[in-house]
């Protein structure tokens, strides 16, 4: 037995709050692993992703629900991310093992912090900080985009008609939460 043990304490762990018809939560055990498609090896990489997850990376700006509750997000031409629920700090190894070296993987779990905003007026709240057009016709369910909100980089994914997953840097989690909460309070 080691002399010391480490305990995990992600920045917004356990956050869950309701505001009128809105609910804001920090999803537990959200694991994120970035995928980089090797130059010249894109087809092989996509094949590996498809066989591992039952779906290839969609086009940039889209995400897709894949096997085992994972979500594949395409962030750029040669970059994507797999998001899944996984508690232990070995998410990258898990993904790398599934992809068999066809894709460069980097653990991003601790780089980001997540907030899920859901409820009928979610869009109205986000309108105060999100420069993107979140109308159905412009940002459909499963669409994903990186942008900036209140001076913070944010990856926003529309996970449902009235629900959005927001990811931002873990070091500024407190400011990020403050920004989203303020938007909610200003609109409800």
């Amino acid at each position, binding site marked *: 037995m080691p002399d010391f043990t*480490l305990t995990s304490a992600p920045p917004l762990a356990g956050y869950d709050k309701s505001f009128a018809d809105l609910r804001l939560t920090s999803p537990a055990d959200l694991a994120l692993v970035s995928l980089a498609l*090797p130059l010249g090896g894109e087809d092989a990489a996509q094949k590996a992703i498809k066989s591992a997850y039952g779906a290839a990376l969609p086009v940039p700006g889209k995400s897709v629900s894949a096997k085992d509750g994972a979500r594949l997000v395409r962030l750029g031409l040669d970059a994507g991310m797999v998001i899944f629920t996984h508690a232990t*700090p070995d998410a990258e190894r898990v993904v790398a093992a599934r992809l068999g070296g066809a894709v460069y993987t*980097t653990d991003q779990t601790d780089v980001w912090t997540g907030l899920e905003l859901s409820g009928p007026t979610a869009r109205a709240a986000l309108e105060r900080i999100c420069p993107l057009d979140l109308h159905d016709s412009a940002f459909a369910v499963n669409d994903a985009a990186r942008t900036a909100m209140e001076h913070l980089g944010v990856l926003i994914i529309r996970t449902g008609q009235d629900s959005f997953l927001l990811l931002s840097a873990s070091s*500024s989690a407190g400011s990020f939460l403050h920004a989203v909460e303020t938007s909610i309070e200003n609109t409800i």
Partner: protein
Amino acid sequence: MTQQYRIKGGGQIDRSTDIAFTFNGKAMKGHPGDTLASALLANGQRLVGRSFKYHRPRGILTAGSEEPNALVQLRSGAHQEPNTRATTVELFEGLAATSQNHRGSLEFDLMAATDLLSPFLAAGFYYKTFMWPRAFWEKLYEPVIRASAGLGRLSMQEDPDRYDKGFVHCDLLVIGAGPAGLAAALAAGRAGARVILADEDFTPGGRLNAETLSIDDMPGADWATQAVAQLTAMDNVRLMIRSTVYGAYDHGVYGLLERCTDHLPDPGGKPRQILWRVYSRRAVLAAGSTERPIAFGNNDRPGIMLAGAMRTYVNRFAVAPGQRIAVFTNNDDGWRTAADLSAAGIDVPAVIDSRDALPPIDLPGIRHVRGAGVVDTVGRKGVRSITLTDGQMIPVDGLAVSGGWNPNVHLTCHQRGRPAWRDDINAFVPGGTLPPGMAVAGAANGALTLAAALAEGRATANAQIKELGFKPSRAAAPRAEDEPRESAPFWYVRESTKRAWLDQQNDVTVKDVKLSYQEGFRAVEHLKRYTTLGMATDQGKTANIPALAIMAECTGKTIPETGTTIFRPPYTPVPMGALAGRARGRDFRPFRLTPSHDWAKANGATFVEAGNWLRAQWYARPGEQGWRDSVDREVLMTRKSVGICDVTTLGKIDIQGRDAGAFLNKVYCNGFATLAVGKVRYGLMLREDGIAYDDGTTARLADNHYVMTTTTANAVLVFRRLEFARQCLWPDMDVHLISTTDGWAQFAVAGPNARALLRKVVDSDHDISNAAFPFMGCAEITVCGGTPARLFRISFSGELAFEIAVPARFGHSMMDVLMEAGREFDAVPYGTEALGVMRIEKGHAAGNELNGQTTAHNLGMGRMVSQKKDCIGNVLSQRPEMIRDDAVKLVGLRPVNRADKLIAGSHFINRGDDATMDNDQGWMTSVAYSPSLGHSIGLGFVKSGDTRQGEIIRAVNPLKTGEIEVEIVSAHFIDPEGERLRA
């Protein structure tokens, strides 16, 4: 006080409810639906303020946002809001307004004496005097001028209200909810386009609310209400009232200010205003038109009002602006004012028409004075009579003036478009070059009559949305008739010998314009700048066109040849608070916190900003007298045993790919081709111009996998540059970059006992002995029973040191563990101050040395810059002036008198030389008190410093403390051979 000027019936006010308010402390009452201006008029308060320069009594000139005169201080205390237009303030319970720009009371302003001196205060007088004696300008003249300038007063307290921002998107933005705007929004809304309809007023309808015109056989105001109801029922239409579109920016972006709670006594915790950025694919500007006055002698008295505004007060607010009101007009529209005033029971003694023509409307009982004008008026605090060109005097208590209407072209010109002149309406209309995506409809486009405006609004919206692929709806167009709108150009009454005002706020008269011409200030911009015409809070919305018509007359040019000044955002003024939104105080920028932040907070840390990061600066222990005590202890204990510092803020970039090594060899100036797996190397990055840019270490974790560290300050910038190199310079390298700065909690563990401490934490299957894991080694390991970690044997302090990284979620716990494991060694946490002391003791360059102005040559690292490979910056780093032998070099410095304290920013001067810039030998970059050496030490750049060790020079600091003598020494104050870090 009773509302003695309230008309018995009609108007869009709720007579069933009283609203109490005060003006200059006087209690008054109004009704919901009133503006402050209409309520003041209802209570017979005609004198509202004082003008800027001559302190002339000022009343209410308009009924809208173009108001130059009726400016008040609204609210009190920290909520005090200067220069607020009474004509746009919605009345609320408890409203308190005071007048501004007077000494003594509003009625008896001591500064009104300046009016008597007006012959000596003509346009530009101040450029010609106040020059002697020289010192008097700043000591005497200017303070007096400043004290009398300005209108309202800031509270000087922090704005207590909150502001928000937002982003809205639409197919079609319709600006203005008057007849044209409503027709446009209805058309686009019915076709299914996403529409935003914005209006600055609190009641949509525009002039329909102020007129007695009919649409579809109902009163115009009722039609507007019905149209609004229809629009509100459409999901695809968003109606934004109290919302001013103030600027047209590139690519269909518009700035919009929504006033959310200004009409409430208290904002109730909600934002006072929201600054919206509107992203539109197309826009219809339906901003209406603004009436302009005619200039004549003493035309600035309270009670003299624009004719259309009189109609607004009578029809919309059911307020009589007077009991006996004459009309002075150059157009048919003035006659409608006479008709409406008369219908409201107000005595209209005469309509004076500058045109020698028959009346356009038959008004029995009202005298028509043809081809005449008003030359003068009487009444210090309110007009009492007017004198006509033929000398006859008419007693009145009000005068309605109409000089025609100017289309509100402002937004069409925000992208430097120029308006075009239309002779038939004697006004500027939008020119050929509009902001892309914008079309103009209704009065804003010169369609000054109702039927035309409605038709144009609908047709313009349909044309706009058709371009976007929508099919226009077939719903019937609203029906209305065009009212008479003939006009003849008439700008000022030539026969007037008295001063005739153009800009009533800034006190610019017809004579000033003529003087401007006389003195050669003839370009319209010269006119504006010389006389201050149009520079007041209303930006000359009512004043500019008559003034430039007069300049045109002087120069013999046409009005369009004379041109307008440039229309620039904002259309109406926007509070600074709204423009800043939430970004103020502690929320100015986000906070980035290190994983051990809470731990540090609980353990006496003082924090310091490093970019957006907060870092522990030092950890105070009970009994320590000041920060130096803490820092000295942290340094000494680290050097003696072991210290721990959170270095998470250093940028970390994960670099993978087949060409990652070759790529690093391009972006660092020193060689990286030979770095072995399991090793770390120091790297210096240059800009392409050869200046040292950033430094750090890069570790090779696997064949195709590296981790780069950058300085805290440059993490984002280095990443950006690397992406540039990857995508633009070497596009076919297989290299991939991911920032992992936030992902790893990283701690420096430094000091002779660092290894012993880490052995207790690192899982036992990893050998971290000096032999197995030497200086500049790296490895992916596990700690505390299997938690993945990264270990780097690198040292910034000069001690035996490691940096250990664990996933950030374990960072707080890791700090606990390291401290607990270090307890037997008396381990200390240390902050950025101790870190800084130790790096200066070791002679490492940091931000003060790598300041973007220094080269590797300056830093003593010139030989690192490889000339044997292609890398960013190596070619330009070899320019002759940058590699001179006598260039400044980084050296160490110590005070000759060891008790002296060095000051960063001191300059070096040779002994015996004068302290001048010509004799400057360099400067001190970083200083610290070295507890290890017991005196102050410094780093600095000295000319030829590398060859001057042992020389004594002067460190001068005339800014504060004079000078001291310092000795040039090696920058490596501690362990120059590097034995400790290899131990």
